[in-house]
């Protein structure tokens, strides 16, 4: 095999390996069977008993259902057109169907969407250049996934705050509808930073159409849902000019500053840093049940002055974790690229606690 810019000398074995890899991404047989039973029961109710064996491949029994990705693309286009017209006519809570809404409900994907990750057996240390290329390829291929990131801060080994965010799609394109949820937990104000436990403080859902890249701040029409939890010592939760008092929730659709909520640093940025020699491979290990390469940031890295470590899966070539240590403070970022199944996308919904009134 050859690298970029050259004509690959592929063999039949390469082709077999590639097809075998595709085969490993097959959806679960259980999912297909349950969908089949459901469709079969619907069909039985409206169709006569089966007749004689017909030649294969003739006729179609079902109207093909639209894939969720097609729905998502269509929904994004429809939203971009309808957003301005409907911006002032909103109502209803995020969890309740019915009522006009600028942003459509999340599409209903198949439970098996995405398939299992590609498995690559690690032979030896890859070069920094090839590791970076593999990471970029993997990052691009994971663009439709649901990105889940946790940022956890410890002080002298004690958990002091954690930020969990889900963003979908993981790598959105300009003009594409982007769904984000960010749940922030911290030690309540006034409580001991040494012994108290963190408490869910603010839960925010943010949906917008991704703007074109710009070096300047951008404003975009967005839907913002905020739940500001009581008992945290905070009097309210703020987002731009929108304020949500503690113990209430709010929902606004308006033009507001765009904030990129995709995991940071992006997988592509990490890949470029690796290619530039800002990270060096220090060993192989296992993390979250996957084989992983451990890297340490070099002195030319962007986060200088304290130790920073990065773990990259050799099964998927996606980043798994980054840990930085500054004195007694440790920050651990964990990244998960999840298939956009119905269950996973459900994390994007912000639950409204019972009894919380709407304040805006």
């Amino acid at each position, binding site marked *: 095999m050859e690298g*970029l810019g050259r*004509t690959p000398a592929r*063999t039949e074995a390469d082709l077999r390996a590639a097809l075998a890899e595709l085969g490993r*991404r*097959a*959806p679960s047989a259980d999912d297909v069977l349950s969908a089949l039973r459901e*469709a*079969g029961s619907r069909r039985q109710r409206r169709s006569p008993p089966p007749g004689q064996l017909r030649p294969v*491949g003739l006729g179609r029994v079902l109207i093909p259902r639209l894939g969720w990705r097609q729905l998502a693309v269509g929904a994004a286009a429809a939203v971009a057109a309808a957003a301005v017209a409907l911006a002032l006519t909103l109502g209803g809570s995020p969890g309740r169907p019915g009522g006009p809404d600028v942003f459509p409900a999340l599409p209903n994907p198949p439970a098996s969407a995405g398939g299992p990750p590609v498995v690559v057996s690690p032979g030896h240390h890859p070069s920094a*250049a090839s590791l970076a290329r593999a990471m970029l390829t993997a990052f691009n291929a994971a663009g439709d996934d649901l990105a889940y990131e946790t940022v956890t801060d410890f002080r002298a080994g004690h958990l002091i705050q954690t930020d969990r965010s889900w963003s979908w799609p993981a790598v959105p394109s300009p003009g594409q509808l982007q769904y984000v949820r960010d749940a922030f937990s911290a030690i309540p104000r006034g409580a001991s930073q040494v012994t108290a436990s963190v408490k869910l403080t603010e839960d925010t859902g943010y949906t917008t159409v991704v703007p074109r890249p710009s070096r300047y701040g951008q404003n975009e029409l967005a839907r913002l849902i905020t739940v500001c939890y009581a008992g945290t010592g905070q009097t309210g939760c703020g987002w731009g000019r929108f304020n949500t008092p503690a113990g209430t929730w709010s929902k606004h659709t308006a033009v507001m500053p765009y904030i990129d909520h995709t995991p940071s640093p992006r997988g592509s940025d990490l890949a470029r840093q690796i290619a530039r020699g800002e990270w060096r491979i220090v060993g192989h290990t296992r993390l979250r049940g996957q084989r992983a390469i451990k890297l340490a940031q070099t002195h030319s890295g962007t986060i200088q002055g304290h130790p920073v470590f990065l773990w990259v899966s050799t099964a998927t070539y996606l980043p798994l974790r980054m840990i930085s240590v500054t004195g007694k403070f440790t920050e651990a970022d964990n990244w998960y690229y999840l298939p956009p199944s119905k269950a996973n996308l459900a994390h994007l919904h912000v639950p409204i606690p019972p009894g919380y009134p709407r304040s805006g």
Partner: protein
Amino acid sequence: MTFNEFAGARLAAVLRFATALTGDPDLAKDLVQEVLIRVSARWQEIGQLDRPEAYIRKMVVNEYLSWRRRSWRRRSWRLIPLGMSNDLTGVPSPDPADGYIERQALLAELAKLSRRQRTALVLRYYEGFSDAEISDVMSCTQSTVRGHVFKALAALRVELDQPLPTIPPSKETH
């Protein structure tokens, strides 16, 4: 053998085959579901065949080749070919990461083949079928099968371990 017994034992293999054929797990699921609905309705007859799985595989292929309601080419392909976005330059080296990249690139090029060429390749290199078996599944002559395979391999720049048998002249067109 009941339909449920058959599905429990062989459905996973059929799904793997359909995924290799379509290049997309979601499409494979749709494809197999549609075929299985017909199969389940006629299992009394299909279950009596010597090789029901071969018959079902043929149904999957025919469904795939005749599926005109969808615009397959417009489907978003999750594997982005190298050079299209976020590309990097670097020195090629034979290591595991390179193998991953190359497979993604090969799969992306595989998606650009015609459906008949792709079907012939999957039957030959994934299922290990002979030309005779492929010609039976695809309802064409063996020379047409070899033509599909030859053109597909050329498009993918795959070097053959051994040259293909000579293709006798054929008037068949597909």
